[in-house]
């Protein structure tokens, strides 16, 4: 099965019942598959006029209780940025899939990159935290899409599935489970103000059409949802809550795989370069090479660095100019070696073996 189809199938298994999007290479197969499958399941597929409207459509659908998603690539992702901020501020659960291609601008439509890793963290204006998942196989395209929906509903945030063209277009064996985990959105309790948070800092959800009178705005708002944009204290409280509802769960929701924790040379990867490193470790059977594979890049799991107490160097191959390596570097005193790659090719195992001092 193709990675993009696995993503769509994962969404359907997770109960996604609304897709609003605009086709763009290399993500189009996600939309195509949803267009075929959703109507048969009483879901809604809408091709919107552009990515600004696509993002708006899934926000609206989500407020009616739908599990809503869109899929895009770099140029479309840029257009979505304003409404992504709106989803953050209004605490609207939704899933945004970005099958990354070479940028800036229209760049390389058919080639892989991971140049949007910082954009998904900081791309919309204002301060917020973000959740971003990075699959490195067709199997994970399925599993992490399911997970994205559950995290979106739990934290009431847009969740990003940041794949790349290689994983999106690659076809390989996949095992589809009979059942997937389903974490439902917590409804707003009767008598509680619509933006009054519970202990986990997440308010219950007042679904449209269920009798709640609720005002939804991108302006700074109080617990009633009413605009209150000139009160400095209230703004700080709101933004800190939006930030901390994810940051406080950083350790708990972290998702990474540790290989050879006692190694001195440790690779750190996410997305398709993980596959190159897995090949290096397989071929260097006698030598201890460590690997920290991040399935969730944001919030950044800085505590995972301590899983490698003997690390003398971290080698970080990325399909960009070192976006996550720089984040990694500020959490450790151990030397970090960036292995940036642009153009669409994947790091060859041979070039990584050289860096790790492993016989080719």
């Amino acid at each position, binding site marked *: 099965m193709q990675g993009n189809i696995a993503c769509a199938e994962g969404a359907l298994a997770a109960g996604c019942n609304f897709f609003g999007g605009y086709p763009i290479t290399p993500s189009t197969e996600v939309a195509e598959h949803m267009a075929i499958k959703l109507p048969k399941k009483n879901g809604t597929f809408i091709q919107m006029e552009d990515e600004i409207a696509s993002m708006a459509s899934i926000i609206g659908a989500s407020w009616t209780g739908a599990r809503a998603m869109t899929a895009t690539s770099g140029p479309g992702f840029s257009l979505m940025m304003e409404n992504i901020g709106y989803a953050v501020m209004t605490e609207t659960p939704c899933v945004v899939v970005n099958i990354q291609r070479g940028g800036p601008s229209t760049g390389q439509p058919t080639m892989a990159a991971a140049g949007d890793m910082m954009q998904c963290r900081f791309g919309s204006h204002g301060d917020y935290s973000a959740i971003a998942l990075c699959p490195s196989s067709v199997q994970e395209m399925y599993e992490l899409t399911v997970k994205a929906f559950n995290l979106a509903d739990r934290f009431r945030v847009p969740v990003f599935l940041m794949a790349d063209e*290689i994983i999106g*277009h690659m*076809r390989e064996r996949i095992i589809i489970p009979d059942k997937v985990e389903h974490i439902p959105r917590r409804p707003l309790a009767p008598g509680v103000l619509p933006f009054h948070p519970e202990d986990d800092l997440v308010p219950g959800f007042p679904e449209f059409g269920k009798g709640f009178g609720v005002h939804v705005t991108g302006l700074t708002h109080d617990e009633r949802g009413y605009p209150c944009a000139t009160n400095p204290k209230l703004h700080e409280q709101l933004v800190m809550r939006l930030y901390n509802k994810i940051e406080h769960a950083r350790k708990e929701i972290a998702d990474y795989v540790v290989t050879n924790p006692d190694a001195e040379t440790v690779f750190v990867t996410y997305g398709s370069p993980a*596959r190159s490193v897995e090949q290096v470790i*397989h071929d260097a059977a006698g030598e201890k090479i460590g690997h920290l594979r991040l399935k969730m890049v944001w919030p950044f799991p800085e505590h995972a660095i301590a899983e490698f107490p003997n690390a003398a160097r971290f080698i970080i191959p990325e399909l960009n100019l070192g976006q996550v390596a720089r984040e990694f570097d500020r959490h450790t005193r151990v030397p970090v070696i960036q292995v940036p790659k642009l153009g669409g090719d*994947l790091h*060859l195992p041979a070039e990584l073996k050289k860096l790790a001092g492993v016989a080719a």
Partner: protein
Amino acid sequence: MRHEVRFSGFGGQGIILSAVIIGRAAVMYDGKYAVQTQVYGPEARGGASMSAVIIDDEPILFPKVTVPDIYVIMSQEGFEKYGASAQEGAVMIIDSTLVHSRPACTCIEVPATKEAREKLGRDIVANIVMLGALVAATHVVSETAIERAILDSVPKGTEKLNQSAMTRGFELIKERGQSA
């Protein structure tokens, strides 16, 4: 046994579909592992297109083909871009209707486009003739597996045509007694 197969031709010939079918045959019907990847441009048709499949008994880690041992080449530009660098030990199956150059490695000439046009009445199944020839020459997947994978993958109503194309591919190799 690991095989790395590279397909090349021009956009519209079914180069990517050929790799998908071989991968499907290996995974679904021969119980092996396979990973299929591709390189293509923004053009819808024309332009050199390349796709690749790795087939292995073990799970596949690095997903890209690096040193193919089998080539299927269906255009001159495809040969120049993706076939000319073939290593000595490789086997190359060439559509001799469309490719004029010949590689340094073992080369099996299959007039797939000519056969498809003259014997089957449709150019479009030339890639399936090539798939039949590929399987008969290299046994990279079994003949039953490729047949089932082809039938899974082609549009409804074209099963017979594609089956004949595959069989013609088998025959072209067997008539020559050429097997690598």
